[in-house]
């Protein structure tokens, strides 16, 4: 969709008037159910509640009472943040925004009846359903690994206990030991995430275990911010990090969690810690609801509505939306567009054109931050990029420090944007 933005303000009333008749439930307020309380779901719930000023009944279903952000979890692993600083509760969403927060799992969606079923046994009706379930792992994508072996070989790719476990294992490594990471194939949550994690682990090992080695086994030819990470690793951690790409067997890897070995294209190596980040797909409920095509849930770029069901929206990592990366920032951005569209559909409030943005900061070492970002809009069939930027190699220490400080400011802002300001 291309809109002449100068004309837009003049035509918005006509556009809103052209929408289908807003749904008004005879028996009460329209109901929105949001599944998943992360960057997509929490933001969507808060914006719908805030903007409708009580005219829409909003329920947020999230199993965890405490949400640990994946973003900045690498800084916790590296010892630059404590766990409490990345933990958030849903109390403000309930108390200040009137959102009905339900700590439960959604186990199925009845799209004809427009209800969701909860693991605890109840069910909830919706007029609009918003799914923001994040990711799940593709079984057998790393032969030898399964969720049952995640204690021996953590993924630490969903925030919380897995992150704590990985950190503890790194701290228990013998001097001169080997940390291995099995990096995921595209597409996956947080493209620079594995490489920021390697940076933060190297930062920790440099101080605590300087003869240790880091081995990255990577099925991808190239990765996000590669030039920046490689430059930073050479500067800060010379000789510590080795990456084996697909040309040298990095794409043909299996693991044995009991023996703590990795098999790299036939070469079996013993390792001390093994971080397996498997291939990924949309959170399971998206598939259970019949909304996926392949591994992800296709959506319309104007409002993140499912291509399969106009009454369901899919946000964030789970969505196949086009050009945006799977990031918390992107999910937050998509949630606001979705919230505006859902408000319009249910109450007749003005719907504005979709616009999105994303910035991903990564920390390479203390005060050495880098970033990449882009702005986006709704294209004909998917979200398309309109402009972008990336940090440059050889930037001054002052610029890198400012970039890191920016990321700290961003963390504060986005978590308040998700969970409300207490």
């Amino acid at each position: 969709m291309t809109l002449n933005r100068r004309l837009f303000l003049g035509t918005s009333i006509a556009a809103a008037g052209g929408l289908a008749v807003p749904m008004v439930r005879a028996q009460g307020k329209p109901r929105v159910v949001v599944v998943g309380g992360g960057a997509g779901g929490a933001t969507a719930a808060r914006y719908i509640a805030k903007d409708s000023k009580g005219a829409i009944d909003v329920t947020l279903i999230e199993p965890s009472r405490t949400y640990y952000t994946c973003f900045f979890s690498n800084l916790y692993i590296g010892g630059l943040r404590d766990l409490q600083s990345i933990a958030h509760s849903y109390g403000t969403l309930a108390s200040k925004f009137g959102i009905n927060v339900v700590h439960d799992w959604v186990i199925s969606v009845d799209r004809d009846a427009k209800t969701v079923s909860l693991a605890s046994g109840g069910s909830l009706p919706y007029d609009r359903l918003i799914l923001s379930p994040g990711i799940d792992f593709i079984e057998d994508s790393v032969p030898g690994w399964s969720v049952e072996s995640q204690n021996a070989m953590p993924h630490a790719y969903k925030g919380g206990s897995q992150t704590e476990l990985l950190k503890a294992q790194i701290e228990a490594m013998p001097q001169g030991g080997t940390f291995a990471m099995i990096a995921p194939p595209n597409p996956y949550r947080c493209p620079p995430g594995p490489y920021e994690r390697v940076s933060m682990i190297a930062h920790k090992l440099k101080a605590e275990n300087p003869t240790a080695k880091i081995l990255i086994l990577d099925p991808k030819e190239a990765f996000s911010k590669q030039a920046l990470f490689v430059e930073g690793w050479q500067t800060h951690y010379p000789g510590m990090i080795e990456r084996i790409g697909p040309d040298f067997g990095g794409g043909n890897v299996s693991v044995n969690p009991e023996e703590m070995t990795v098999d790299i294209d036939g070469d079996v190596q013993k390792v001390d810690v093994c971080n397996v980040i498997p291939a990924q797909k949309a959170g399971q409920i998206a598939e259970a609801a019949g909304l996926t095509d392949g591994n992800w849930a296709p959506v319309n770029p104007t409002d993140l509505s499912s291509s399969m069901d106009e009454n369901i929206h899919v946000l964030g990592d789970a969505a196949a939306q086009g050009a945006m990366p799977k990031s918390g920032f992107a999910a937050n951005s998509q949630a606001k567009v979705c919230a505006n569209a859902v408000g319009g559909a249910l109450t007749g409030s003005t719907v504005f054109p979709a616009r999105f943005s994303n910035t991903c900061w990564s920390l390479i070492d203390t005060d050495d931050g880098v970033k990449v970002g882009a702005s986006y809009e709704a294209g004909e069939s998917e979200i398309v990029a309109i402009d972008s930027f990336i940090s440059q190699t050889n930037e001054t220490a002052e610029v890198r420090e400012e970039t890191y400080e920016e990321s700290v400011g961003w963390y504060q802002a986005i978590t308040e944007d998700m969970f409300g300001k207490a």
Partner: protein
Amino acid sequence: MPSRPIYLTLLTGTLLAGPVGAQGGDGQALYRECIACHQIGPDSENSVGPHLNDLIGRLAAGVEGYPYSKAMSAAGAAGMVWTKDTLDAFLTNPMDMLPHTSMGYRGMPDPQDRATLIAFLATGPDDATAEATFNVAPEILALQGDLAYGEYLSGDCTACHARGTDDGIPSISGLSRDAFVTLMQAYKQGAVTHPVMTMMAGRLSNEEIAALAAYFESVD
């Protein structure tokens, strides 16, 4: 006028841009760090910050009609005068010298750069090359923004700009309309640069900037 005394930490942008073209100690080039907010030279007026004509020898908070911070007003009431020495101390790190000043500039660390800039401030621009003032066209400043559209667009800002804290990224809530428009136009027109803000401002129309300005002026 501003409900919040224009907490201009937006100048992070100029900082990241660095002293553009400052090689050779060119005062006018160093002054590019100031132009989004301050005017100097003939016909200068108060803008986001007070005009800088006849600065040397002026009492702190001495420009009539400019809404100074309490911190700056107190310094003026105590008799502080802008001299080469006081300016040097202030420009090293404004918030160190005058905590709670509304000039959110992080400072110019290099003593030689400061001396060059202060010499420029003392004489003003050479008229033949005057590009020392960033002016937003009056018709752009006069645009009335759509508050509801501004609130929607603000979602692009609030992912990074938290309310009530300037840590890392400045708060923009409560900025005066004129300050907001001037700064965003400075990014949009390239008078100051910052990778994120240049991109974000670049996609906004003048009407959208006016809408955002109306919205952010309305929030605490």
